[in-house]
C-alpha cells in the first residue's frame, strides 16, 4: 500500500477493483464503512461478479475478467478529454512534461523494439531524451509532441467509452457514471483510493493493471494524499513481510536485487542500481544502494565481508533467469530440478495446471515439506480417487514432512498491507514435534555446515562463513532475528556533519537506515526495516494508538517501514509551495524551517519548497511516472491485452496482437491453452470469506460455514445448460476437470463483448483432498500455466472452461 | 353381598376393566396435562418425577386412553344412539337435578344424559387426539406449519378443559346417584336401583332379554 488500512477512512471515493475486500479482507474493510459513515464516501465496486463488497457498494459496475486495463485506459481517456486532471500536480509531480526519445513508437499493439523470436523488447527507445547536461529534457508547456502527456493522450485516445464497453462488456452508461465519480477527485480537496488484490496481480498483464491505476491516481493528484494512493491488499498475514525480506527468487532483502549472470563486476552491479539524478536537485534515494547492500553483506557474512573482497559479492548467485515458481515446476517437468523444499507453501493447490505439477513432483528425488498442516503437496503421491488420481507405486519421490508451528504458536512480527510491522506473541505452545520454521532451517543449516566442514565440497565459502551468533545455535529466536534485520553499528559511528561526535557506539542498534554506511561499519539484514528494534527496544511492540491529527496516523503504534512513515510520497500532499493541497488533510507541511506534521515526511526534511527536489524521492527524476521508461516488460504505457485464453478469440484493439507479447510461455504449455470453440465460458477463480486459502478446510468452524466445493454461474447460463442450484456440475478446461455443486445466482450477468454474449463461471478455490471439510477437487486443475510478464504471477483470474451437469 | 345373583348384571368384567383403564389414563392425563397448562398446577409434575417426565409420558398416556376409549366407544356404539325419548328425557334435567324423578321419561341402559355425555366425549377425545399429535414436539410438530401447531395448542387446551369438565360431571353423577358406582365397580346393580333409574332396561332384563 502507498497508504495504509486506516487511511481508507479519509477517502471520498473508494474503488474496489481487482479485489474483493469485503470477502477477502473483511477486517480491513471496516475502513470502507468508516469512510462511508463519517466521510460521506462513495463506494464503487468494479468486478465481473456482484461480490460481497458490491453488496454494500453505492455503485456496482460489471466488467469482463481480464479487461481492467481497457477500463482504466478508458478512464484516463475520459479524464484527459474532459480536462478532469489536477493540472498543477500533474505538471509539477509527474513526468507529463518530460520528452521521450525519438524512436519510441506504439503501433498495432506493439511498442518499438519488439523481438518476436525472444518474445521480449529492446527497450532502448523507452527513455527520456537527455540534454547535453545528462538530464532529461522537459517541456513545461507540455505541448511537445513527444512529451509524455501528449503521448499519453494519443495512446489512450483509442480507449473511447464505446471501445471500453465493447471490450469489457460494461454498459456505457455505468462506465461513464464511474468516470464521473472518479473525475470529482481531481479537485485538490477530494481523494480517490483504489483497493486491489489478486484480482489484478493474477493476470498476464497484472502489473500493468496496477500501473494503470497508479497513472489514474497521478493524473488526479491523489498519490501522497491522505485517502488516496494505490493500495494493495495483501492476502497472507505476512506476505508483505515476505516480499520486503526478498523471498522472491530474484530479490535481496529491502527490494534490492540479485545480480544477473552478466553482472560479475561489483562496481557495475552497484552503479546499475544507484541511480544518478535525471533532473537537477533530485534526491534519487537509490544512490544510497551501496550502503544498504554492504550492510546486508556485513549482516550475512560479518568479518568475512571486506572491502577487499567486494563484500563477498562473488558469493552471491548470479541469475541466468528468474527462478519463479512456474519456472521451478517447468524445470521439474523437464527433469532438470530434482530436489525441492516447500516451506509454508502448498504448490499443488496454489499453482496452475495440477496435472503438470503432479508430473513434476513425481520426477523429484526428494521433496521436503515444512508446514503445520498435512498439505495436498505433501500427499501428492496418495491416491484419493477422482480427487487425486495417482498410482503411488509409480512415484519414487521421497517425501519428508517436517511439522512447523503456525503463527499463533510463536513470537514474531507480521507486516500488514500498510507496512505496519506489528509484534505478536505466542498464543499457544505448538502441538507434538512441531518446531518454528527458524529452528527447522537452523537444524538443516547446522547439519549442512558440519558436512561441509568435514567433507568439504564445491564452493563451501558462503555456508562456512555465514554469521551465526544466535544464543542457541539450533534455535534462533524471533527477537534475535528482528534485531538482526534492524541492524547495528559494527564500530563507533561518527556524526558525518559533526565529526568527533559519536552517534552510535559499537554494538548499538541503529535508529534508521540513514545511519547505514558503505564502509563496513554497519550491518543491517533489511534496510527498510531499520528502526524496528532500536536501542529503545522493540518498536514493533508499541501499542499506543493515539492519533493527534485524526487522520489515522498513529506514529506510536508498532513500527511502519520505511522510517515509521504511514503515507508514502507524502510530500505530494502539499503544493510546490509547501501548503497542503487540502487543509483538512494536513499530513505534512513546511513550517518555515523544516518539513513536519502528522506523518514522517517522505522528503529531505530541510529542503525548502521552491527547491527543485521532487516528491518522488526514490525516482532519479523525482516525479511520478506516467511513462514507465524501461521498468515494465511489455511497454511504458499499459496496453490492453486479452488473457491467454480469451472468450472472444481476438483483441478488438489490434487483432494481430491478442495477448501479452512479452509474457513467457513454455513450449509444452502452448498446446495446453483452450479456445472459445471448445471452452466458451470465461472462468475466474477466487476466495470466499469463510475460508483462508487451503488452510481452513482443516478447521472445524470454517468447514461448518462453507463445507463443500461449489462453482457460481449466472441464472442465464444455468438455464441454457439446464442446471439448477444444488446440482452437481462438471467444469473442465484444456487441462483437466473438477466437479462441484452449482450455485446459481443473479450476481453473474452475461456481458455483451465484441458482438458476443460472454458468460462467466466463478470458481472458489478452497477445497482439496486433505482436511475435514468435504473433499473436493483442487481448483487449479483448471488454470493455465502462464504468468505476468514482469512478476510471473500465474493467470488464475482469466481462463476458459466448459460446464455441464454432472 | 356385592355379587348377589339376584342383582342385575350391568357391566361385564371386561367392560369394567375397559372403563377403568380409560378412567385411570384420563386421570393421569389430567394430572400431567394441567401442569403444562397453568403454572398453578405445575407442582403436580412432582407426582411423575418432574416436568420432563411429565412432558414425556403425557402423550403416551393419551395414546393409551384413546385406544382404551376407542374400544369402549366401539363396544357401546349402538347403545348410545339418541332417540326422541332421550331428547325428551333431557328436557327434564332440571327436575332431576332437584332430586325429583317422578316425571322423568323412561330410560334404557343409558339415559339421554349419559348418551349425550358419551357423544361429547367421543368428539372431544378425537379433537384431543388430533391436536395432541400436532403439538407432540418430539415426533410430529415439525411436520406442520406453525399456525396449525398454534391452533392445535388452543384446541387441545380447550378440548381438555371441556372434557375435564364433562368427566367431573360424570364422576359427580356417579357419586350423587347413589349406588351407580356399584355398577362399574362390581358389575351388578340392585333391581330397585335399576327400576328407578333405567326402568326400560330393567324391564328388558327382567323379561329375559339381554
Amino acid at each position: 500500500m502507498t497508504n495504509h488500512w486506516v487511511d481508507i477512512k479519509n477517502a471520498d471515493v473508494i474503488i474496489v477493483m481487482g479485489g474483493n475486500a469485503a470477502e477477502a479482507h473483511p477486517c480491513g474493510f471496516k475502513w470502507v464503512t468508516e469512510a462511508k459513515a463519517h466521510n460521506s464516501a462513495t463506494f464503487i465496486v468494479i468486478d465481473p461478479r456482484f461480490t460481497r463488497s458490491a453488496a454494500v457498494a453505492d455503485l456496482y459496475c460489471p466488467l469482463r475478467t481480464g479487461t481492467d486495463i481497457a477500463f482504466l485506459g478508458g478512464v484516463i481517456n475520459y479524464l484527459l478529454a474532459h480536462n478532469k486532471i489536477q493540472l498543477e500536480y500533474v505538471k509539477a509531480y509527474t513526468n507529463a512534461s518530460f520528452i521521450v526519445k525519438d524512436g519510441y513508437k506504439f503501433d498495432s499493439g506493439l511498442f518499438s523494439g519488439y523481438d518476436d523470436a525472444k518474445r521480449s523488447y529492446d527497450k532502448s527507445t523507452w527513455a527520456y531524451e537527455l540534454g547535453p547536461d545528462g538530464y532529461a529534457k522537459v517541456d513545461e508547456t507540455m505541448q511537445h509532441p513527444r512529451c509524455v502527456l501528449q503521448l499519453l493522450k494519443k495512446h489512450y485516445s483509442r480507449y473511447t467509452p464505446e471501445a471500453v464497453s465493447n471490450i469489457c462488456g460494461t454498459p456505457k452508461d455505468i462506465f461513464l457514471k464511474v468516470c464521473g465519480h472518479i473525475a470529482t477527485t481531481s479537485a485538490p480537496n477530494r481523494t480517490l483510493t483504489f483497493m486491489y488484490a489478486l484480482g489484478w496481480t493474477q493476470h498476464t498483464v497484472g502489473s500493468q493493471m496496477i500501473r494503470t491505476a497508479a497513472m489514474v491516481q497521478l493524473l488526479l493528484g491523489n498519490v501522497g494524499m491522505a485517502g488516496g494512493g494505490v493500495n494493495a491488499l495483501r492476502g497472507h498475514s505476512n506476505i508483505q513481510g515476505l516480499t520486503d525480506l526478498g523471498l522472491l527468487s530474484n530479490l535481496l532483502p529491502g527490494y534490492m536485487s540479485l545480480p544477473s549472470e552478466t553482472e560479475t563486476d561489483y562496481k557495475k552491479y552497484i552503479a546499475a542500481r544507484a541511480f544518478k539524478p535525471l533532473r537537477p536537485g533530485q534526491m534519487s534515494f537509490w544512490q544510497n544502494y551501496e550502503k544498504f547492500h554492504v550492510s546486508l553483506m556485513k549482516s550475512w557474512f560479518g568479518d568475512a565481508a571486506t572491502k577487499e573482497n567486494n563484500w563477498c559479492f562473488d558469493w552471491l548467485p548470479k541469475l541466468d533467469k528468474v527462478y519463479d515458481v512456474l519456472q521451478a515446476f517447468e524445470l521439474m517437468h523437464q527433469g532438470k530440478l530434482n530436489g525441492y523444499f516447500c516451506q509454508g507453501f502448498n504448490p499443488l493447490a496454489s499453482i496452475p495446471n495440477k496435472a503438470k505439477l503432479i508430473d513434476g513432483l513425481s520426477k523429484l528425488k526428494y521433496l521436503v515439506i515444512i508446514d503445520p498442516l498435512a498439505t495436498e503437496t505433501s500427499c501428492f503421491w496418495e491416491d484419493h480417487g477422482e480427487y487425486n488420481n495417482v498410482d503411488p507405486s509409480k512415484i519414487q519421490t521421497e517425501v519428508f514432512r517436517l511439522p512447523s508451528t503456525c503463527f499463533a504458536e510463536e513470537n514474531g512480527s507480521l507486516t500488514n498491507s500498510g507496512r505496519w510491522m506489528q509484534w505478536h506473541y505466542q498464543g499457544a505452545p505448538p502441538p507434538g514435534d512441531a518446531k518454528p520454521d527458524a529452528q527447522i532451517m537452523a537444524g538443516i543449516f547446522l547439519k549442512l555446515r558440519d558436512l561441509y566442514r568435514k567433507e568439504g565440497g564445491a564452493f563451501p565459502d558462503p555456508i562456512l562463513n555465514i554469521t551465526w551468533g544466535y544464543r542457541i545455535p539450533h534455535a534462533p529466536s524471533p527477537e534475535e532475528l528482528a534485531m538482526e534485520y534492524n541492524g547495528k553499528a559494527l564500530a563507533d559511528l561518527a556524526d558525518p556533519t559533526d565529526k568527533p561526535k559519536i552517534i552510535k557506539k559499537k554494538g548499538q542498534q541503529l535508529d534508521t537506515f540513514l545511519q547505514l554506511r558503505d564502509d563496513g561499519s554497519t550491518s543491517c539484514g533489511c534496510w527498510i526495516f531499520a528502526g524496528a528494534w532500536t536501542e529503545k527496544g522493540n518498536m514493533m511492540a508499541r501499542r499506543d494508538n493515539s492519533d493527534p491529527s485524526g487522520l489515522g496516523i498513529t506514529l506510536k503504534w508498532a513500527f511502519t517501514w520505511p522510517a515509521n512513515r504511514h503515507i508514502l510520497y507524502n510530500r505530494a500532499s502539499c503544493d510546490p509551495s509547501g501548503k497542503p493541497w487540502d487543509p483538512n488533510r494536513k499530513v505534512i507541511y513546511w513550517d518555515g524551517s523544516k518539513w513536519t506534521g502528522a506523518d514522517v515526511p517522505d522528503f529531505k526534511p530541510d529542503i525548502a519548497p521552491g527547491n527543485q527536489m521532487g516528491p518522488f524521492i526514490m525516482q532519479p527524476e523525482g516525479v511520478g511516472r506516467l511513462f514507465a521508461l524501461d521498468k515494465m516488460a511489455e511497454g511504458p504505457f499499459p496496453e490492453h491485452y486479452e488473457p491467454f485464453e480469451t472468450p472472444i478469440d481476438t483483441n478488438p484493439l489490434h487483432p494481430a496482437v491478442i495477448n501479452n507479447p512479452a509474457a513467457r510461455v513454455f513450449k509444452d504449455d502452448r498446446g495446453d491453452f483452450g479456445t472459445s470453440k471448445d471452452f466458451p465460458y470465461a472462468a475466474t477463480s477466487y476466495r470466499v470469506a469463510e475460508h483462508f486459502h487451503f488452510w481452513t478446510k482443516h478447521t472445524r468452524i470454517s468447514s461448518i460455514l462453507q463445507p463443500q466445493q461449489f462453482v457460481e454461474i449466472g441464472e442465464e447460463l444455468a438455464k441454457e445448460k439446464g442446471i439448477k442450484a444444488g446440482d452437481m456440475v462438471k467444469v473442465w478446461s484444456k487441462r483437466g476437470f473438477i466437479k462441484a455443486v452449482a450455485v446459481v445466482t443473479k450476481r453473474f450477468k452475461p456481458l455483451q463483448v465484441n458482438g458476443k454474449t460472454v458468460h462467466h463461471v466463478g470458481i472458489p478455490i478452497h477445497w482439496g483432498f486433505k482436511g475435514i471439510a468435504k473433499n473436493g477437487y483442487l481448483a487449479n486443475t483448471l488454470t493455465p500455466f502462464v504468468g505476468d510478464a514482469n512478476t510471473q504471477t500465474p493467470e488464475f483470474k482469466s481462463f476458459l472452461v466448459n460446464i455441464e451437469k454432472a | 353381598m356385592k355379587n348377589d345373583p339376584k342383582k342385575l348384571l350391568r357391566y361385564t368384567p371386561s367392560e369394567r376393566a375397559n372403563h377403568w383403564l380409560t378412567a385411570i389414563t384420563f386421570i393421569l392425563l389430567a394430572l400431567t396435562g394441567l401442569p403444562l397448562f397453568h403454572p398453578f398446577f405445575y407442582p403436580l409434575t412432582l407426582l411423575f418425577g418432574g416436568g420432563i417426565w411429565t412432558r414425556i409420558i403425557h402423550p403416551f398416556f393419551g395414546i393409551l386412553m384413546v385406544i382404551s376409549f376407542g374400544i369402549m366407544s366401539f363396544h357401546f356404539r349402538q347403545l348410545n344412539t339418541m332417540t326422541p325419548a332421550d331428547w325428551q328425557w333431557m328436557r327434564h334435567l332440571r327436575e332431576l337435578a332437584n332430586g325429583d324423578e317422578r316425571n322423568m321419561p323412561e330410560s334404557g341402559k343409558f339415559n339421554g344424559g349419559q348418551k349425550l355425555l358419551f357423544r361429547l366425549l367421543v368428539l372431544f377425545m378425537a379433537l384431543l387426539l388430533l391436536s395432541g399429535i400436532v403439538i407432540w414436539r418430539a415426533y410430529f410438530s415439525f411436520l406442520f406449519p406453525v399456525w396449525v401447531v398454534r391452533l392445535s395448542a388452543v384446541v387441545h387446551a380447550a378440548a381438555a378443559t371441556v372434557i375435564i369438565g364433562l368427566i367431573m360431571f360424570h364422576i359427580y353423577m356417579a357419586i350423587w346417584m347413589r349406588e351407580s358406582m356399584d355398577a362399574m365397580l362390581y358389575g351388578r346393580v340392585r333391581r330397585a336401583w335399576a327400576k328407578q333409574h333405567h326402568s326400560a332396561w330393567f324391564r328388558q332384563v327382567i323379561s329375559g332379554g339381554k
Partner: protein
Amino acid sequence: MALQSLDITRRSGTTTPSPAQRKTMEVAKLIDVSKCIGCKACQAACMEWNDTRDKIGTNHGVLDNPMDLTENSWTVMRYSEVETSRGLEWLIRKDGCMHCAKPGCLKACPAPGAIVQYSNGIVDFQEENCIGCGYCITGCPFNIPRLSKKDSKVYKCTLCSDRVAVGLEPACAKTCPTGAIVFGTKEDMMHHAQGRVADLKSRGFTSAGIYDPKGVDGTHVFYVLQHADTPGIYSGLPKAPSISGMVSIWKGVFKPVASFALALGAFGAFFHYVIKGPNEVSKENEKEFEDEK
C-alpha cells in the same frame, strides 16, 4: 445460560413477581443490514464463545450454511438476491433471536423459570429448567428456538447474557468487522440507527428505516433495513410480527378462565350435593325389592 439475578422482569411458568429489585438499563443489539458483508464472522464468533459446533454439512446451491438455525447454530446469515428499482441488491440478514420486549416464547413456556427476561431486555433460556415441550417454538413469532435431539432442550441466542452481565458486548458484535452489529443501550442504539437511516436516505434508499416491531413491544435485537417497507424481501422477515392470537388465547385469557371454570364446576357439584342431597332409590322401589337387602 443460568445467572443468579435480581433483575428479572418476567419468568416463564410463574404467576407471582420474580426478583426485580435491581433495574438495569435496557440494552440492544443493532444489526445494520446495509453494512453487512455476510462474512459469517458473527456465526464463527457465536460458535466459539458458546462452544457449539454443528455438523460439517453440504452445499445446497446457495452460500447460506448452515442452512437454518439449529440448537448449535444460534445465528445464521440469510442471503437473498433481490432486483429492486436500484438494480440487483444482495440483502444479507443475520438471523437469530430478536429478544422481544413481549416474548412469545416466554408466554408459551409452561416450565417455571425455563425462560426469563431480564430487565436489560435479554430473553434467556435456562436450559436446566426446560422440560422440552417445545411450546416456545409455538409461541415465537420469528421461528427462532430449536429443540435439540440430543438432550431435548431448546436453544437459541442468549444475546451473550453471560458476557453482557459482566460488561462485555455479545461475541458477534465484538467480532463484526464492519460495525454492522453494534451493541449498547437501546436508547443509544436507536440514536445510532436513526443516523444510519439518514445516511441511507441520503444515498437514495428512500424507504430506509428501523425494524423494531411494535407488535412485540419492540425488540432488543433490531435492524436497520434499506427497504423497511418490505421486510419480507430480507429472507422472509415478518412484516408485522406479534404473538399469535392463538398463543395469546391459549396462554393468555384462556388459562385463568378455564381453571376458574373447572374450579367452579367442582364447587358447584359439591354444593349441589350438600344442598340437594344424593339421589337415592325411592322408598317404593326399595319396598318392592326388599329381598335384595
